[in-house]
């Protein structure tokens, strides 16, 4: 009963308050914060890494980083953004380590603007579930670029830097990704 009461009180605390308690070693606070964001970290990691096993591994590492850095966490009510940044960077590091973000195309061309608009309009009309299933069938580089564009909405310049590719290459990756998505959604086939 006392445990339930404690858990109930902790659930009312803000993310920053929970991180503060985690920095003092509170396991119950960690469990509450973990319950709050576990599915988000796992879902994002799965989309980035393209598999549940790797996503679970990444999720463990991310939560370990949260606890390790709890004492130095700068609380400004931005825990979720910080958590997602940690998750994104960790996933990008895993992809780089596994050499899965290699862009090998020799000819890099940016798509014509009217094509880009049509592709974006098509993606906007998709439900997240359809998009999620279709993204799983894309090659790593295209899936990562489109996942990051859909969730974190970075500028193309920032995303190109994060992925370690040129701006032209990124535009080409995104263009190909969107074309592939369209094909998958129309035919259901993997690219």
């Amino acid at each position, binding site marked *: 009963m006392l445990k339930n009461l404690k858990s109930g009180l902790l659930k009312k605390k803000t993310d920053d308050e929970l991180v503060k308690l*985690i*920095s*003092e*070693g*509170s*396991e119950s606070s*960690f*469990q509450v914060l*973990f319950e709050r964001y*576990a*599915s*988000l970290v*796992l*879902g*994002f990691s*799965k*989309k980035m890494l393209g598999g*549940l096993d790797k*996503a*679970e591994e990444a*999720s*463990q590492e991310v*939560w*370990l980083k*949260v*606890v*390790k850095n*709890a*004492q130095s966490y700068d609380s400004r009510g931005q825990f979720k953004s910080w958590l997602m940044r940690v998750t994104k960077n960790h996933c990008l590091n895993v992809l780089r380590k596994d050499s899965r973000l290699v862009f090998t195309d020799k000819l890099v061309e940016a798509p014509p603007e009217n094509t880009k608009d049509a592709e974006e309009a098509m993606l906007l009309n998709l439900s*997240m579930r359809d998009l*999620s299933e279709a993204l799983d069938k894309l090659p790593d580089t295209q899936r990562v670029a489109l*996942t990051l564009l*859909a*969730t974190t*909405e970075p500028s193309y310049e920032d995303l190109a830097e994060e992925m370690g590719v040129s701006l032209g290459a990124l535009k080409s990756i995104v263009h190909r990704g969107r074309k592939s998505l369209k094909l998958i959604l129309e035919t259901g086939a993997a690219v």
Partner: protein
Amino acid sequence: MKNENEFYETPTESHKKAVINTVKSELKKNKDSAPSKYAFFSWQTAAVTAFASLFVYFQLNNPLQIDEMNSNLITELASLKPIEREVIEELEFVEFLDQMSEQEIKEITL
């Protein structure tokens, strides 16, 4: 609350347990390194304060210095001839009398 622009995956019980087990040792480290709730009490500060208090006390009431003065006085008195010592003792008595009130002198002379 779920956001429409995010991907979610419900974690399995085994994943939850794995994460909790992974972070346990790190939580313990946090607990050990967290500042104590009684952080305002510091042994170092207490030691410095005690030392400073003793220093001030000995500056005002230096028993070593008083002992040294007494010791010098005894040596000097011992080195005096008996007649000289008598004079000194009388002088001290006169000085003692000076410090007494007339009433007190009357009382001891009666």
